[in-house]
């Protein structure tokens, strides 16, 4: 894992002091709420329906045991004893007092954490593959490149008042586990024919009310031009992105309106200019960062067989563990989707327990996934049963990774001031329905994603089944979408037709899955069947 040096620590500490001063000036009435808003937002502090919400950055989703423990302690000390892991691989606390916020940031800084740029119209926390360093299909670990970008984008003086928020994602395999092409800039680390490593730039993806899959604008940016190229992409956006309408202000609209070719042309011109400015860190800086992400000391000669006599354990192994590049190890996913629970929520005790398990079983490391679960990336097969026993005793052994119960849901109208409808109760009812009817296993991989408004924080466009909550004449109404995917086969879901009420949407989801079960061919996932047979059979089942 990356370790701060004195410079990194000083930057974070300085930010805490600065924010303490900003809060002081706000509480003293020296600055207005309008003037304070962008400042608190740049420190991850939102004003929600009931209280302030603080969003803490988890760069590229990676946490040490000590960092995870701190997240649990903060939940106890400053919140109501729980936290909410988000689709941005971050954690949010929903019941924060403004006057506590500087102390929380100071506590975070003691474990090399912060809330810098977790909101506001700036470059946000950089996301990545939650199996980075464990997956067998990577060109390289993507996180050093994400860390280089993290430092460059932190307090970038030119890009703190962009037209709109800006999200980077970095992956390093053809399999996309991080929704890379649904980011403002998605970078895939690639190897060219000469065997050199470089960066493929996909620019202008995103969800929200106008979802778009990012087009490839440059298939190979050399590593020693990564920062300069990123700066060129951002400068063109900062200058020409729309500022007249916040719903048209994301870079996806600029790329779409200019056309990919014209946007790329402008970036290339700016890039040629910026190359004369010497803004790129030397490769030595990347070489300094890379060893922090070196493989832990994997043991060799480990057994690769597992004792599977406990059926509950065996089911969890089949559903929630993923092949690892090192023989005798797996990546284990702790589902934060218990049946009837709130997706992504964990209690302070559970967070601290997961911290201990990361230390004991996974080389002191865990990850937050964009699907709101926690990964222990490097677990010995020989330790798996002991790990599961502890998870099972603490309500953390739901065997439902990538199933219809593994629902992504935004906080929705229960918390969020932007929402039109509640997301959490719908997620709870769906997981209860499928746990009760026993179809979860038979349905196999089925990614269901729920957003409580058109801003799409719950990734509904990218769900095999998506649900969008809307307000229809003051009543919550839910639209159903089919056929989305956030993965390498990226696609955007289509709305089936008229929406449903809260119970109706649960029935509609079950009807859609019944169409799949009736029509699927060998080995097809729900998504594959939908793509083969199209929308009509689903519409017939839903509306006739």
């Amino acid at each position: 894992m990356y370790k701060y040096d004195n410079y990194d620590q000083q930057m974070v500490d300085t930010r805490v002091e600065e924010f303490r001063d900003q809060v002081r000036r706000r509480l003293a009435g020296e600055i207005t709420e309008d003037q304070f808003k962008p400042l608190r937002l740049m420190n991850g502090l939102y004003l929600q329906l009931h209280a302030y919400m603080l969003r803490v950055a988890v760069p590229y989703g990676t946490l040490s045991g000590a960092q995870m423990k701190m997240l649990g302690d903060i939940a106890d000390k400053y919140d109501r004893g729980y936290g909410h892991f988000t689709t941005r691989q971050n954690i949010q606390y929903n019941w924060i007092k403004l006057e506590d916020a500087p102390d929380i940031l100071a506590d975070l800084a003691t474990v090399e954490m912060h809330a810098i740029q977790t909101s506001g119209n700036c470059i946000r926390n950089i996301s990545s593959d939650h199996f980075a360093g464990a997956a067998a299909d990577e060109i390289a670990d993507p996180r050093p490149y994400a860390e280089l970008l993290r430092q460059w984008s932190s307090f970038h003086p030119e890009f703190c008042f962009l037209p709109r928020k800006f999200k980077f994602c970095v992956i390093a395999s053809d399999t996309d586990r991080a929704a890379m092409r649904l980011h403002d800039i998605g970078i895939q680390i690639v190897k060219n024919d000469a065997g050199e490593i470089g960066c493929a730039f996909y620019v202008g993806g995103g969800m929200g009310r106008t979802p778009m899959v990012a087009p490839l604008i440059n298939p190979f940016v050399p590593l020693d031009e990564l920062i300069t190229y990123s700066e060129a992409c951002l400068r063109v956006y900062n200058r020409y992105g729309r500022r007249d309408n916040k719903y048209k202000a994301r870079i996806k609209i600029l790329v779409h309106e200019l056309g990919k070719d014209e946007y790329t042309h402008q970036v290339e011109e700016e890039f040629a200019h910026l190359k004369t400015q010497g803004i790129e860190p030397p490769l030595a800086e990347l070489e300094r960062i890379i060893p922090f992400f070196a493989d832990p000391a994997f043991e060799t000669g480990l057994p690769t067989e597992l004792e599977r006599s406990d059926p509950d354990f065996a089911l969890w192994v089949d559903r929630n563990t993923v092949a690892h590049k090192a023989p005798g190890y797996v990546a284990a996913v702790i589902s934060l989707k218990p049946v009837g629970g709130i997706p992504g929520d964990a209690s302070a005790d559970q967070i601290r327990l997961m911290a201990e398990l990361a230390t004991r079983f996974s080389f002191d490391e865990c990850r937050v996934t964009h699907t709101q679960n926690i990964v222990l990336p490097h677990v010995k097969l020989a330790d798996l049963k002991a790990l599961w026993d502890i998870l099972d005793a603490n309500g953390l052994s739901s065997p439902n990774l990538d199933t219809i119960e593994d629902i992504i849901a935004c906080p929705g109208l229960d918390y969020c001031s932007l929402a039109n409808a509640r997301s959490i109760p719908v997620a709870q009812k769906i997981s209860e329905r499928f746990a009760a009817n026993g179809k979860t296993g038979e349905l196999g991989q089925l990614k269901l994603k729920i957003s409580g408004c058109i801003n799409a924080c719950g990734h509904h466009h990218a769900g095999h089944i998506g649900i969008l909550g809307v307000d229809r004449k003051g009543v919550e109404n839910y639209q159903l979408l089919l056929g989305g995917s956030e993965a390498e086969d990226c696609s955007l879901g289509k709305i089936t037709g008229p929406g449903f009420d809260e119970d109706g949407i649960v029935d509609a989801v079950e009807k859609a899955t019944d169409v799949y079960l009736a029509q699927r061919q060998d080995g097809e996932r729900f998504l594959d069947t939908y793509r083969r047979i199209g929308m009509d059979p689903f519409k017939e089942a839903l509306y006739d």
Partner: protein
Amino acid sequence: MTELIRFRDDEASESPAVTVDAFGEQTNAGAVRIEPGDDARELLPHLSHINRVEVNFPTFGDGRGYSAVRILREAGYEGEIRAVGEVLIDQLSHMRRCGFDAFQPDKPLNDADAEAAFARWDNVYQKTTDGRVPIWAKRHG
């Protein structure tokens, strides 16, 4: 409260600033004012006889001026570049980093707060034209 904060030793020019459009027809004007929608690059052929550029921030949230000032500095412009409009304490250090060397906010700032803001950051992660050595360069001295 100071109405003009300036990091220059030369005499402040107070000749009226013309718009970028007007400057196109009247290139003997000494001072130009860039609005958010203007292309700072239109001024590049004329930089040698501009003694002051003002960059206007009608609202602090419109960040186009940060790119405008960097473009002028990257082109080698050494005259005064003054941030005007809604210039607030918490934007000062970013503005300074991008190349502003004069600040004339619509609403004068508290001197102590402004001084603290300019002095806040001992180190920086990025290289700009302000001459500060970024952290990556210090690491690899």
